[in-house]
């Protein structure tokens, strides 16, 4: 490798590490306990889960397969099959779904608006909304 290669790779690494730590800090600082997790299937909100206590609100009944309020586990429709979401520690994570590489499960737990869980083959997205944002949305609507 030439000096220019090392400089370019060094620059890319520096930018990547900088962005990585910035996002980590942003995520850590933005964690919420009083918002909600919105579950979207094909761009439509089908279910929301209160992050304070895990209470679910069904928005599109046709796409919600199962709600287990005791275990706080919720199953929604996905393109390749059911997507199972668990509420835990004021956040949510995907515990089961069908996809070629299971990236969705590996994304782990989220309660930050800056970390959405994306199950691309199933066209399911779980995003976090702060309680303040929900109130503002309500006023605007």
């Amino acid at each position, binding site marked *: 490798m030439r000096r220019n290669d090392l400089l*370019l790779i060094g620059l890319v690494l520096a*930018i990547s590490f900088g962005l990585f730590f910035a996002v980590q800090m942003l995520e850590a600082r933005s964690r919420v306990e009083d918002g909600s997790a919105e579950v979207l299937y094909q*761009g439509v909100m089908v279910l929301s889960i209160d992050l304070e206590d895990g209470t679910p609100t069904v928005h599109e009944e046709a796409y919600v397969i199962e709600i287990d309020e005791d275990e706080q586990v919720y199953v929604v429709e996905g393109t390749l099959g059911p997507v199972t979401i668990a509420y835990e520690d004021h956040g949510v994570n995907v515990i089961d779904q069908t996809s070629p*590489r299971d990236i969705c499960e590996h994304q782990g737990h989220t309660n930050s608006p800056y970390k*959405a869980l*994306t199950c691309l*083959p199933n066209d399911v997205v779980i995003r976090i909304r702060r309680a303040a944002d929900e109130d503002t949305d309500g006023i605007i609507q």
Partner: protein
Amino acid sequence: MKTRRLTFLAILLAMSIVLNIVERVALGGFTNLPMLRLGLANIVVLIVLYVYGTRDAFAVLILRIALVSLLYAGVIAFALSLSGGFLAFFLMWLFSRMERFTIVSVSVMGAIGHAVGQIMMAMFLLETEEIIFTLPIFLLMSVPTGIFTGLVARRLIRLMREKMPILRY
């Protein structure tokens, strides 16, 4: 000469398809990071780019994406591969024209292009801008995988030029 070139390009295209499928099916199980992809098929695109030129490399890339999507992947994977492939190819072409950089840098930029292109397409398909926050981890993974594929491609190009001069053009 033309037939020889066409035959060799067809063999390279077949190799890139096999490498892509092997990576998806076999190598995925070896790591706990399913997002991590070595980009083995990109080794072939790099070889064609340096040995045969831009047009043939682009043809191999597009045909590989289309054939793998028909054989194995679905519509979403096709859209992701295409957007990643286009951006990767543009960056590889751009950096390969700058003589100050070797194939290793070109390969790293290709890996970055793949990551950025795929994330942009995922944001568009899912209409979820929060996906952009996954970019840093993909960028970090692009560097070692890009260096690896670049070093392998460089070694193979050297071998081809030394041992198989008949296949050069």
